[in-house]
């Protein structure tokens, strides 16, 4: 009795991570570290701004992490990781030279073609700046392709401000209108205080030619989306990136499902017009 093996011709090994080496680690806030990584096989990650990877630490599991660097910066890529759970805490203890596993990049990423020639209003809240930074630096590295660039960035307190060196460069860049705020200041803070929508109120935007790219915690979306609407932004001129528990990254495990769609496959970047009627979106 022969046993036929009719393997599915399209079948793929989906769960085997690729080893990558930590080239550089920098503590960027008390809770976040920035890891610069290189794939051991020498290849580029080949990601789009806004995509994510599954980080593997054997013994701890996997976690979906946004790629924070722009694909225009070749050779290595960066992940900015908050020590939140067991895997990310273990990752924070790893020295330069250590190996981790990478699967991906996964997800759709930002549509850099659609944004060409448009004015872009970036709105980042807290750790939302991490995925947003990949697109901001992509736009700045292809300056001629994009219009007016405005960046609004807000955190709860000055201690949580990420990428301070880069923020300074954006502030000094004459082609960028950079503004930031904190919900609560401290004794050294001389900047703007207030939630991020207060920055938006002061801004002169041209909703007809501008796309707003918004990434932040769920509560921020609620208020920013209201504020954008009051400024006559069309729903389809608003782009968001959503956080979900993307356990497998390949549309199988079910954890990241938001109504009918899998965020790891159809997202994490969405045009707001597409998902505004999804009860589970925000």
């Amino acid at each position: 009795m022969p046993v036929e093996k009719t393997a599915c011709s399209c079948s793929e090994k989906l769960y085997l991570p690729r080893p990558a080496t930590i080239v550089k680690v920098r503590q960027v806030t008390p809770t976040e570290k920035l890891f610069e990584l290189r794939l051991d096989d020498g290849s580029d990650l080949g990601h789009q701004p806004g995509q994510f990877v599954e980080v593997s630490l054997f013994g701890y599991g996997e976690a979906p992490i946004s790629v924070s660097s722009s694909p225009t910066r070749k050779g290595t890529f960066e992940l900015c990781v908050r020590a939140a759970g067991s895997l990310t805490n273990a990752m924070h203890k790893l020295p330069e030279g250590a190996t981790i596993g990478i699967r991906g990049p996964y997800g759709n990423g930002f549509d850099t073609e659609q944004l060409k020639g448009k004015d872009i209003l970036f709105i980042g809240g807290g750790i939302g700046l991490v995925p947003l930074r990949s697109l901001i630096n992509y736009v700045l590295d292809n300056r001629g392709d994009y219009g007016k660039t405005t960046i609004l960035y807000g955190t709860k307190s000055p201690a949580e401000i990420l990428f301070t060196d880069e923020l300074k460069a954006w502030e000094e860049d004459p082609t960028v209108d950079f503004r930031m705020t904190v919900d609560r200041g401290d004794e050294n803070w001389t900047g703007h205080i207030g939630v991020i929508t207060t920055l938006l109120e002061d801004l002169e935007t041209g909703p007809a030619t501008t796309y707003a790219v918004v990434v932040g915690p769920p509560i921020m979306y609620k208020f920013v989306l209201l504020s954008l609407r009051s400024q006559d932004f069309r729903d389809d001129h608003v782009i968001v990136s959503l956080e979900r528990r993307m356990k497998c990254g390949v549309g199988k495990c079910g954890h990241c499902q938001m109504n009918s769609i899998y965020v790891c496959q159809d997202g994490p970047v969405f045009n707001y017009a597409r998902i505004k009627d999804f009860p589970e979106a925000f």
Partner: protein
Amino acid sequence: MTDRLLGTTDIARHCGVTTETVVSWIKSGKLNACSTPGGRYRIAARNCIEFLKEYGMPVPEDWIGDDEDADQQTDEESSHMNQLVLPKTNVPRLVDNLRKSYRVFGPVPRGNSSAFVELDDAAELQLDYTTTILPPKKLVLPAQEELLEFNTQTWQAREPEPDTKPVAALGVHPCDMQGILRLDFVFRKGQAESNYFDRRDRMLFIGTSCNPDESCFCSAVGTNKFDEGFDLFLTDIGQSYLVSILTDRGREVLKGLGTKAADEIDLNEMAKARERCSTHAGGQMQPSASTLPLLAKDGEDAALWEDIGSRCLACGTCNLVCPTCYCFDVRDELNLDLKSGKRSRFWDSCQLDEFAEVAGGESFRKERSNRQKHRFNRKFRYLAGEYGAPFCVGCGRCIRQCVAKISILETANDLEKAVANL
């Protein structure tokens, strides 16, 4: 008319290699083999011939002779015989036949119900059963499945070797087979998953007609299909089973079983028995399956979700017993040496509190009412739209096993009324 089986030494001698090399061909999947109860590899002559041809090696004449005779006889014997009659007393011989090439699983009594277990003894098998506690889903998508073996020191990782011996599932009901066909769709969609298909594609499915109860509702969701997905289907016609042959793989395992061709009376009995399977399913669903996607959408704000949510204990049983639930969690385990370990996936449940939680602690389906609504939508709307049929197969397990007495049938019926009154 038997297929000649070859040992690894026969092949090693012929190819001029060591038996270890032959074993490595088998392990890497190049050469298909089965194993003896004592764990020795045996290779069907026709598989070996295929292998030799593929790699351009000469084929010994005596191997060809055996095999072609067998082929011719089988073809002549069976080309006009796709409906055979198998006396019930010969079922143990069918199990023995299967065990030569497969690990055989079938329903055996367990408490008030039945369970699919590996059959060590054909006498345990009870083909006349109502339902099993867990669906045969567990054979294509095990409750725990190793994805990787790793070493944290050397950073080596590899996928585990697939089992050499495939699984035959005997006594699968149409609703459960339809569940597996839906899982096939999910694991093929987007990027097809080798972990699933390496096992699934080698499996053999033998269906049986069923013995439905008041929780079954296959005909309402259109899953009373006797000829989809199976290699063989056994319809109970009294003293015998009418065996419908649906694939060549199925035909193979019937050799030497003392079957006879079915006559007109047998075929009539089969039609009647199949009709009974569908009509005796007692669960009544008022809305028709085709209206359910729209009903689920229109009923999103219906008050009944609050009521169901308040009764739900969020235990996840409905997911675990569902033939089409496939969501999983992934966990790593270290061995005692703290260096090596494995990564496995486990069945998970969208009814559990932490299912949709993210690292920051935010949960996107905090309320039980929303999780129940999510499950209903997954069964009748989201995936159903893509697949073209409901992802609920009407097996009734979630109804029978819910400690809070939440019934997906009642929900569908109440939802229809609620939407009509909106």
